[in-house]
């Protein structure tokens, strides 16, 4: 046979094939429209499947219309009522001149709605927006709808965006796992894809492997599940660690001012929590002012509240020091009682002024929302509070180490009488130190107003924890406070999954009580003569 002959033969076959396939599309489309016109639930579901799997050009239009109840069908054909109110022939996409007669909306039930949702997911795979494609692939991944396999595979062929491609491959793998008639080799590949995905959904999908799979497959599945569970445990631990750091930074903020006053003056300030509360209420007042007078400044409200809270709390602190505490130096237990009295007065004053109920403090836009990092869910407000705690700590460290005032403070801490003999006005340093410690508590209040209820009892809920941090970390060393706060925060959150929130906290308190027996002056204790003073 000559070459020409062969070519002609091939051409004939090709033409015949193309014609047949076009005819089959037309035919399946016909079937779909007939079924839609029949308006029975099972026919409608089947019609949707046909439309989607044959990739009919108007499939998206039709399925969306069906979802919204805008799809009309009757003996005269199928039409779509557009959102604008016009009518379109569903088969051709041509606008219809007039409203079609003898057509009524195609009805839906739950089975049809599920089919519609699945179809919408499949159709979204062809959306021009890569983010939408990824989301659609994700939806297919969860539905594991075998009918969408062709469209998923078609989409994989065309996909250029790497994220969308990965999502599509995972969707494909999910379908292949669940589909009863998949080849074992494909399933192995699918298990591998899911193992790499390694999250809760992948786990659920892996478990959807049919029971009649070969032992080798089941083995691979079990291994993949074990790997994923290991990974998930790791992520859960990381998430707890993150929560712990977040709690630790909150504790650090609440306790660091206390560490300063306690460290320098040996004064237990029971009103410290109320300084935090004053800071939170200052934030509330600043935000109210901004809301009423300058709403455009709202995103800056926290930045404005910070210095305000520092000044308010610091001023109240200095007033307390000058008014009460300086008469009680050398009598730490009585200072404790007097400051407790002050804390009651401050609480009641705020309750009288602002009412006993919680006040709402808004979050600026940069502090709301969350993002995901691997398997971690991280909220912006917690992130910012950690950053803020670190900044406050650095600033305090700088003040203590680099400024003349810090030098004098350290001198007074180490040897009050010698410092006095060297010409340091210890009384003034005491007042300033107390003001600084209280001001920092005010700053903590601004941060806490973002994550806690702003009520007159705000300070009470932190005072015992703050004391635990200071006592655990030891006085006279800010690093001790950091280590104390972070240890307690992380330990608390790591204990929680095993013991529950309350029991974990009790366990921690007991641990601290025992720890104090071992090191009565905390982790980083001052050494030397200062100890007995």
């Amino acid at each position, binding site marked *: 046979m000559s070459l020409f002959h062969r070519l002609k033969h091939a051409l004939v076959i090709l033409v015949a094939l193309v014609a047949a396939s076009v005819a089959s599309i037309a035919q399946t489309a016909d079937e779909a429209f007939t079924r839609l016109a029949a308006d029975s639930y099972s026919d409608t579901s089947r019609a949707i499947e046909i439309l989607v799997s044959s990739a009919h050009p108007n499939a998206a239009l039709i399925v969306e219309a069906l979802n919204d109840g805008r799809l009309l069908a009757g003996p005269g054909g199928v039409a779509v009522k557009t959102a604008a109110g016009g009518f379109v022939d569903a088969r051709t996409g041509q606008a219809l001149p007039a409203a079609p007669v003898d057509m009524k909306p195609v009805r839906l039930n739950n089975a049809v709605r599920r089919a519609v949702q699945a179809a919408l997911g499949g159709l979204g795979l062809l959306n021009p927006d890569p983010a939408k494609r990824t989301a659609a692939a994700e939806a297919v991944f969860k539905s594991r709808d075998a009918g969408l396999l062709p469209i998923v595979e078609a989409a994989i062929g065309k996909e250029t965006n790497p994220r969308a491609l990965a999502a599509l491959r995972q969707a494909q793998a999910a379908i292949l796992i669940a589909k009863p008639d998949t080849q074992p080799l494909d399933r192995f590949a699918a298990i591998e894809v899911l193992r790499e995905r390694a999250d809760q959904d992948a786990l659920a999908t892996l478990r959807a492997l049919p029971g009649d799979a070969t032992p080798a497959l089941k083995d691979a599945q079990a291994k993949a599940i074990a790997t994923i569970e290991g990974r998930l445990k790791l992520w859960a631990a990381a998430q707890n660690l993150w929560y712990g750091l977040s709690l630790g930074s909150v504790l650090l903020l609440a306790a660091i001012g206390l560490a300063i006053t306690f460290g320098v003056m*040996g004064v*237990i300030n*029971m009103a410290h929590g109320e300084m935090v509360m004053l800071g939170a209420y200052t934030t509330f007042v600043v935000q109210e002012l901004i809301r009423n007078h300058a709403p455009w400044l709202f995103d800056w409200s926290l930045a404005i509240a910070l210095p305000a809270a520092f000044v308010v709390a610091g001023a109240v602190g200095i007033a307390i020091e000058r008014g*009460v505490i300086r*008469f*009680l130096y*050398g*009598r*730490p*237990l*009585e*200072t*404790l*009682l*007097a400051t*407790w*009295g*002050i*804390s*009651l*007065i401050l*609480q*009641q*004053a705020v*309750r*009288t002024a602002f009412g006993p109920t919680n006040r709402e403090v808004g979050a600026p836009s940069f502090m709301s929302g969350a993002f995901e990092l691997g398997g971690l869910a991280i909220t912006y407000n917690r992130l910012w509070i950690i950053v803020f705690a670190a900044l406050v700590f650095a600033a305090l460290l700088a003040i203590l180490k680099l400024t003349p005032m810090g030098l004098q403070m350290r001198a007074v801490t180490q040897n009050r009488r010698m410092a006095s003999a060297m010409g340091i006005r210890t009384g003034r340093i005491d007042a300033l130190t107390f003001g600084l410690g209280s001001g920092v508590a005010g700053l903590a209040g601004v941060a806490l107003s973002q994550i806690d209820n702003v009520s007159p009892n705000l300070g*009470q809920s932190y005072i*015992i924890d703050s*004391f*635990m941090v200071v*006592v655990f970390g030891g006085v006279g060393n800010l690093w001790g406070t950091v280590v104390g706060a972070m240890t307690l925060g992380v330990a608390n959150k790591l204990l929680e999954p095993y013991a529950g929130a*309350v*029991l974990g*906290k*009790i366990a921690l*308190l*007991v641990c*601290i*009580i*025992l720890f*104090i*027996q*071992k090191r*009565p*002056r905390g982790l980083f204790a001052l050494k030397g003569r200062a100890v*007995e003073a």
Partner: protein
Amino acid sequence: MITRFLLQNMDKRGGIFLAILLGSAVLVPLSNLLLPASSPFHVPTSTLSLWGKYLCYALLAVSLDLVWGYCGILSLGHGAFFALGGYAMGMYLMRQIGSRGVYGNPILPDFMVFLNWQELPWYWWGFSSFPFAMLMVLAVPGLLAFVFGWFAFRSRVTGVYLSIITQALTYALLLAFFRNDMGFGGNNGLTDFKDILGFNIQAQATRAALFSLTCIMLAAGFLIARGIVVSKLGKVVTAIRDAESRTRFLGYRVDRFKLFVFTVSACMAGVAGALYVPQVGIINPSEFAPANSIETVIWVAVGGRGTLVGAALGAVVVNWAKTLFTSGFMAPYWLFALGGLFVVVTLFLPKGILGTAEAIWARRRKPDSTPAAEPAPAE
């Protein structure tokens, strides 16, 4: 002989205090039960219960004064011992309800039925017996104080650190008792008691008897505390308060003395709690709140630290004022008053009402000689 031991060295103010207490123990219930309501000397039952409550607080204050005033241990967790004693009594009273509860279960208290518990937890065993419950009133707080004190005093935790860990102790107990799983009624605590030793707890006669008993127990607590502080042991304890290191160097086992006083004091606080519960009719976890324990400290400080009588006086005066303040239009200002009291007493009345009054009295009687100043209690 014991009586002689307790009564030796009884000074004038202690004598007056005892006389008043024992007089009230007899006369007040009699006036409540026998005199007609119209008589000017009749004591209404509500007043009787209220003062019974004050006297329980007074016993708590005496127990705290024993450790703080004479041994220098500022416990911010004495409320925990009080509440534990109260819970022991409450458990006995709960078992006495029997099948009269809302659910009519003869064994399980209502809250356990509500939580679908099938049987009584082991730590509730035996509480249907009054003697056992009374033993627990002493033993539970005493044991806790012993274990806690053994750890704390042996490792020489003192001063502010000790105060803070006692606070942590009561805070931990507060959290624990709030849990429903603990089997102590959770948030609601134990309440709705019916009778005690077969007597209706609401009856006037029972209340009068409870009041009388409270007076007697306060007197007994005072005598024990007084007996301790005037004994040779008490001298060592006072020495520990004033110069702990020096006492240790003199060869005394400081931790043992402290442990003894602390444990006795905790038992006394437990008794106060046990007397408190039947008179108030409820015990719940809020009694563990650290704020309550700190308030107890202020009663002692107001009355006069290191005087025993003063502590009882302070408890009664402050609580009487609290009732007065919180029941009228001045209710919102009570916390201002209480807070102010803390500040004023620590600043201006370091010896409390009793100490200051006695100093003035002594100065007036002997205008030419300086008052025999007792050394001020060191921290």
